[in-house]
């Protein structure tokens, strides 16, 4: 075990897979010489050379078009979209091409590619550079959607995404890049589609993703210590495939579901979890489902305003205290 930052774990995961498999290539804007705008890919150019680690022009469509073509012709590309907001620029290639190719070719062509992107708020980047858009990806059939909360998961899930035969959207949380955590040494591969129970409680089950996992854990500690409310915290980790078995069984244990998501309210991923819970474990629910989300607004860049919109530890504590008996 070594203590790595979340951003170091990105580079470690990419390096592990590039060492293992020559077909793995990496491309994006400022990813090579500059080591990435978030410094998450430092050292890869030096290690693997300009043929396998490429800086691209500022064209998201070009980056994903190239990645798609490379995947079609036998490589296993990792493409970076600098800010997840920019997925909108190349969404046709993601939603209509990459997601559909396996189906429309009857499986003759598969696209083993990974799109990494920096997601979410917390860095005061304003409405066009701070969105949490994992829910956009979740609603497109044909792509897998992963969003790790811990450095170890970054490495393990990134490796699993590269090895997956189909396209994976890999959401890295901007606000977590500097967090540190233990990461297994050597080759480390996790499994896509498995949620993780981080804390076991008896009064309610908090289901969270990425940065909200950490806020939920902090909130759960306060709720337990100061208010006698004991919470289970589940890190979803992967929205597609979704580990409904773990999520539903944890909901059934406490009878109460709280989702904590950074998505704006309407059609955030928590709504889907709430819907599944209502469908599949209604008779285990002991009270209304509670969704804690960002409001349905474009995000402000002012620090205080941004802090006021994204679910905070205090807000999670308050809402759970108000809503859970």
């Amino acid at each position, binding site marked *: 075990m070594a203590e790595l930052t979340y951003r170091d774990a990105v580079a470690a995961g990419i390096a592990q897979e590039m060492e293992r498999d020559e077909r793995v290539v990496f491309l994006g804007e400022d990813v090579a010489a500059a080591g990435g705008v978030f410094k998450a890919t430092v050292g890869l150019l030096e290690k693997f050379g300009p043929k396998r680690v490429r800086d691209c022009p500022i064209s998201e469509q070009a980056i994903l078009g190239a990645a798609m073509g490379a995947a079609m012709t036998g490589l296993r590309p990792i493409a970076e979209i600098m800010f997840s907001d920019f997925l909108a620029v190349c969404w046709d290639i993601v939603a209509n091409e990459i997601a559909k190719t396996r189906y429309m070719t009857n499986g003759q062509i598969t696209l083993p590619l990974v799109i990494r992107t920096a997601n979410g708020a917390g860095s005061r980047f304003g409405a066009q550079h701070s969105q949490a858009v994992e829910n956009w990806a979740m609603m497109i059939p044909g792509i897998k959607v992963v969003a790790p909360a811990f450095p170890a998961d970054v490495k393990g899930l990134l490796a699993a995404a590269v090895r997956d035969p189909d396209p994976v959207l890999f959401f890295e949380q901007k606000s977590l890049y500097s967090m540190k955590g233990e990461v297994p040494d050597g080759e480390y591969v996790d499994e896509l589609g498995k949620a993780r129970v981080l804390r076991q409680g008896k009064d309610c089950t908090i289901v969270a993703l990425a940065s909200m996992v950490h806020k939920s854990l902090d909130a759960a500690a306060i709720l337990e210590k100061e208010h006698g409310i004991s919470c289970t915290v589940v890190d979803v980790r992967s929205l597609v495939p979704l580990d409904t078995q773990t999520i539903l069984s944890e909901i059934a244990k406490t*009878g109460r579901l709280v989702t904590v998501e950074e998505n704006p309210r309407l059609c955030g991923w928590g709504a889907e979890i709430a819907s599944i819970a209502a469908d599949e474990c*209604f*008779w*285990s*629910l*002991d*009270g209304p489902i509670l969704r804690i989300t960002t409001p349905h607004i474009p995000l402000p860049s002012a620090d205080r305003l941004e802090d006021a919109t994204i679910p905070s530890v205090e807000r999670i504590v308050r809402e759970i205290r108000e809503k859970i*008996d």
Partner: protein
Amino acid sequence: MDVIMPQLGETVAEGVVTKWYKKVGDAVKADEMLFDVETDKVSTEIPAPATGVVSEILVEEGVTAKVGARLCVIREEGAPARPTVAPVAAVTADATGAQRISPTAEHIAEIAKPPTTPPADGAQGRLSPVVRKLVAEHALDVGQIRGTGRDGRITRDDVTAYIDARGQQGAAQAAVPAASAPAASPQAGVAGQSLPLSPVRKRVAENMTKSWTSVPHVLQVVEADFHRIEQARREHGAAWKEREGFSLTYLPFVARALSIALGRYPKLNAIFGGDRITLQRRINLGIAVDMNFEGLMVPVIKDVSNKSLPQLAREINDLAVRARSGKLKPDELTEGTYTITNNGAYGTVITAPIINTPQVAILSTDGVRKKPVVIEGPDGDSLAIRPVGVLAQSFDHRAVDGAYAAAFLRELKLIIETRLWAQDLQS
């Protein structure tokens, strides 16, 4: 399929199977009479829910079963004979979950979805899905479970704690063999004999205890001069009886007067719900009916304020007759917003009635008797002989105060004394 003890009325928790029309091996058609059930509220015939063969009868005649308990099994045509190990199924959850219900604010507001109306007390009475399921699975009476959640809501932990406690007491499960019901009549009782409570008696006992121990009752009494009502009865009573086939009593007059007075004093036509009082849009008058000394039932006349005096008279008579013969429908016992009880026939002077919670008041009318009354006139006072009745109202002091309740009684008295009642009968 399993045939279960149905939910017959919102407050009903159990029933006695009094007769099976089929025996094991008999073919039965859907909607054909299958068995009779007697509850504390009604006796009724239950039709078969499906066509098939009665493959099992699990509850003998005369045995009490909780709502939701399995009574028999019908093997449907084409269905394989399968072992009947299914527990009291979750499909009963709706029915059972709905027990212990009387009209609440939400109930009146959400009248469009009657089958699972909320219980009266605690958290505006909503039961969560898991509580409903547990209640159905264990055939529990939610009225017995103390809610510790917000606003007294019953939580899953409350139910499991209740089940654990009950398990320790070694209490009975789904079908409880009862001492052969119906219970012997009190007249037949011999001194020293111990009589098991009939379902009606048991329910009356529960409800009365709950109200008496949890509601601060205040009794107020006024006398009212019934001479205008007496006059109307004298003029129209004979023709009425000939035409309608039953006597015109004081009760419909009082009901009519009540509906007018309650319209002006809406806080007495209300439901008390712990942290709020919900004034009711409809005035639904419960009428306490004695079951020939075998218990008490309170059929409800809905929307009294929309009904004429003759209409009220007919409905009260109809409900009383059917109550005594056990032919009331479950929905005729629910949604009351105010209750009237009448012991006048036995010559009582004052009865202090117990409030039918979560309503906030109840009126008792006692005997109307001729009395000397001082009439104040412009030429001085004079004595007259007038039929005088006593109106005794118990109100919930949590909901209203004495002045308001007294003002209401004065209004009621004024209506009784001054309305041109004969005109109500001519219309």
